[in-house]
């Protein structure tokens, strides 16, 4: 095929323009910002004061931020375990040959297309309501309420996980469906039961899919914001605060916990979140050394 430089440039330039302006430039500037003291987000570079790693040390010694980071890790770990377990369970059930698979699959994925704001309203006003809530009996048995400060985080976690299961289930499901039936056939001939079949065939061939799922889960966790904001009763509610909420309060909001205006701190939060994603990605890649298996 004839090479056509003009055409390539014309085809690529618009996308590259948007990419450079919404990703490349902001990322570089955010990295720079995190090493400066900046009184106002909109301050020009000339007004920045270099402060080394002060922003990072300050962040890590701020109790609210530590709480936020801890909350994020809790959501990532506990939520991750719940979501992955349920998603895998549903994927295995759906691929076991049950009837109405398409219907079930569609309904389980449904929450993913609903606005998180709408979903959160449904959970708060209905499921967790202390007057007529669906899960009220559970709380009543223990003598507490879902949305009280001690149990709000749990409530948030459950509601969030409910919405996330569908997406990760689809990824697992597509992975399982790609496994050749020959493996299961061979296993059956050798007399494996359903459990060993799952453990030694399905799981061991799903490493790559796990990696995708964990990476995606971590990326969405790093952007955890709207659920936290909706479950907060005050502007910065430390029971459910996450780093992004703290960044928002720190830089844009009228937060009640903001001690100083410093956009450099906000930038440092962004970097911390990015590092979090990179670490998870790296650990996944090392721990789940990709299957050289072709299937």
């Amino acid at each position, binding site marked *: 095929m004839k090479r056509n430089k003009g055409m*390539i440039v014309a085809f690529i330039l618009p996308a590259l323009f948007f*990419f450079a302006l919404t990703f490349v430039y*902001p990322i570089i500037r955010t990295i720079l910002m995190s090493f400066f003291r900046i009184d106002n*987000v909109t301050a020009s570079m000339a007004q920045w004061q270099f402060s080394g790693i002060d922003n990072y040390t300050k962040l890590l010694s701020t109790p609210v931020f530590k709480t936020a980071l801890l909350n994020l890790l809790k959501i990532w770990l506990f939520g991750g375990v719940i979501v992955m377990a349920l998603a895998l369970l549903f994927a295995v059930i759906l691929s*076991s040959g049950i009837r109405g698979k398409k219907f079930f699959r569609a309904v389980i994925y449904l929450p993913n*297309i609903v606005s998180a704001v709408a979903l959160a309203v449904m959970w708060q006003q209905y499921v967790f309501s202390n007057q007529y809530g669906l899960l009220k009996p559970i709380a009543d048995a223990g003598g507490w309420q879902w949305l009280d400060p001690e149990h709000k985080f749990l409530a948030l976690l459950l509601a969030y996980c409910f919405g996330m299961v569908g997406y990760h289930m689809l990824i697992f*499901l597509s992975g399982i469906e790609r496994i050749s039936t020959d493996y299961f056939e061979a296993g059956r001939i050798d007399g494996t039961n359903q459990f060993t079949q799952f453990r030694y065939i399905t799981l061991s061939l799903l490493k790559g899919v796990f990696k995708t799922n964990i990476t995606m889960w971590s990326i969405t966790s790093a952007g955890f914001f709207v659920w936290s904001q909706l479950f907060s009763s005050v502007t910065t509610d430390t029971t459910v605060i996450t780093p992004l909420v703290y960044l928002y309060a720190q830089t844009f909001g009228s937060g009640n916990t903001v001690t100083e205006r410093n956009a450099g701190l906000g930038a440092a939060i962004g970097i911390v979140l990015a590092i979090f994603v990179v670490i998870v990605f790296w650990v996944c890649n090392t721990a789940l050394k990709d299957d050289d298996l072709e299937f």
Partner: protein
Amino acid sequence: MPIPAPVQAAPEKENVRKLREPLHSHKQLKLLPGYIIITVWVLFTFMLLGWVLCASLSTTPEIFKGAVGTFPSGLHFENYVKAWGSQNVSRIFMNSLGYSIISCFALIFICAPCAYALSRFKFWGNKAMQSGFVAAMGVPVAMIVLPLFCLVAQMNMMDNGIRNRIVLIFLYIGINVPYTTIFLLTFFANLSRSFEEAASIDGCPPVKIFWKIMFPMAQPGIITVTIFNFINIWNEYFLSLIFANSDQMRPVAVGLYSMINSMKYTGDWSGMFAAVVIVFLPTFLLYIFLSEKIIAGVTAGGVKG
């Protein structure tokens, strides 16, 4: 003309298997625990959505009495009329519709040519650009929001007018460029080159080959990615919160949030649930008609939900 789309192969195989395997009660019995678990989950989902639908048709006192679903005073469709009229719902709805449709169209015309060029031509920086797009899909929004805000503020773009709308649309396009391009790239890579070769032998210039032959052939992929973009933009929250500061500019997600907050004072709960349903309706309708396409798209080219 059959278009090689790997996603469409799966359902066919399924049908074949279904024909060969009649209903064995023994086998189905073994699957019973699976049925029970899935059914419980599905019922819960229906109850959640159904309750909101019922609440939106009840009166506020009925909701607080816990009488949702029994409709002691009949169905109150006027909640919708009220919410649409007086509660800003029509405004945020039309805002979101405008933002989403314009961004979705722009994304296709920006990303499809780029994806095509990246999938077909070898040139300096091609691989780097692809890796850059893939990496960008994992960048937390916290990494990009501050400089963007600074840029927009310095240009005085947040004026609650048309310039503000342009900023929002620009951002919706920008953050979805990497995903859209990578999705379409895998799609183009799966299309056969023979059409282009034939057209090129007939003397058709490459630009024309793209718009007249390849672009129409990529339609299934374009439709799928557009549905995703629409849902993503419709539900986008964080950037809208920062860059749409007034009631006139707000899209549905942020508008709904500020409505909920003011609901604490007005106490019109049935109206709020009507608003929730209205906001949720467009993506839900899309899903009812296109769920197979959406589900195939999640796992096909994309790694985003």
